[in-house]
């Protein structure tokens, strides 16, 4: 079986996946997506049986996945999953529709409506961009005057969606950590706490959070797998919080980074992800 691992920035994860694929007996190729060109609707047998999409740029990733699926290739994750995960609103809708516990979330389409939504939600609240990762531009808003200032800043942004529309979410009182579960299909490959560094409330590893392994209880396992299923399944990073009221899933990541989690767990994450890719391609 031949698997192509497409990337645009060759990180530790992509190299680990490639090595795991070779060790697993697959004919694996690392493909730099930046050099690819396609003529619609040609087939691309040189890319093999299945493509593991690992581009770090969301728009490059989803556009390439659209093209590859259009050329008849199986891509992990699918375009539908990529689009659902890369837009926080789409993720929230998918989670809510599948009755996965998730923080209360509002969409507002103007700055005036954002202020009204904030009053309904109550302060503090969290203002997030629709697209983005690593906690970038995710802001705790503690009062109305801060929201008004942020609105002024947002209105200067070039991206029309981020400029004029607002994704507001309940601020959840939680310990200074969250949960990252790496999922492949219906299997939880690894589960870690991400502990925020001193002086930082966000728990992204990209912001210095430290990963620590733990064993999820049955309730958390069910919530994680339900969240993965809600966005369409595949290789995913499910992020959850643990307030006293019970688990809440706040994000599902389409191109999950696992270097931090791998440093904390015994499981061989890339090998298990490649095993999933291999099984999916054989279906």
């Amino acid at each position, binding site marked *: 079986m031949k698997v192509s691992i497409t990337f645009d920035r*060759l*990180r530790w994860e992509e*190299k680990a996946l490639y090595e795991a694929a070779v060790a697993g007996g697959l004919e694996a190729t690392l493909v730099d997506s930046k050099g690819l060109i396609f003529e619609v609707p040609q087939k691309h047998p040189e890319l093999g049986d299945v493509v593991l999409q690992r581009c770090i740029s969301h728009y490059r990733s989803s556009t390439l996945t659209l093209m590859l699926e259009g050329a008849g290739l199986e891509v992990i994750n699918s375009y539908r999953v990529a689009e659902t995960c890369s837009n926080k609103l789409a993720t929230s809708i998918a989670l809510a529709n599948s009755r996965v516990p998730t923080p209360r979330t509002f969409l507002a389409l103007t700055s005036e409506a954002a202020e009204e939504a904030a009053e309904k939600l109550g302060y503090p609240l969290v203002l997030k961009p629709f*697209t983005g*990762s690593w906690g970038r531009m995710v802001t705790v808003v503690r009062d109305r005057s801060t929201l008004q200032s942020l609105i002024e800043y947002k209105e200067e942004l070039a*991206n029309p969606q981020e400029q004029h529309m607002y994704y507001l979410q309940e601020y959840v009182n939680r310990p200074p950590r969250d949960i990252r579960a790496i999922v492949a299909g219906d299997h939880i490959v690894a589960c870690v706490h991400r502990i925020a560094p001193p002086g930082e409330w966000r728990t992204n590893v990209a912001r210095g959070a430290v990963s620590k392994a733990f064993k999820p209880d049955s309730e958390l396992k069910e919530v994680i797998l339900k969240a993965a299923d809600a966005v369409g399944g595949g290789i995913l990073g499910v992020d959850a919080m643990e307030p006293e009221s019970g688990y809440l899933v706040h994000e599902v990541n*389409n191109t999950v980074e696992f270097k931090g989690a791998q440093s904390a767990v015994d499981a061989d994450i890339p090998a298990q992800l490649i095993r999933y890719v291999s099984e999916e391609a054989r279906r």
Partner: protein
Amino acid sequence: MNTSCTECGATLAVPNDAIAGELVSCKDCSQEYEVAEISNGNVLLKPAEQVGEDWGE
């Protein structure tokens, strides 16, 4: 494999097991490069892409 940083001129050491697409950065000025090509022990670098607004997981 050694080459030089086009930004500051310092010697830039590229690991012998590096592969095309891999990133290396200059220890002196932190300029980041992507390995474009390796042939006959010679390495060709190009400036790495800058972090984009849509980058992430």
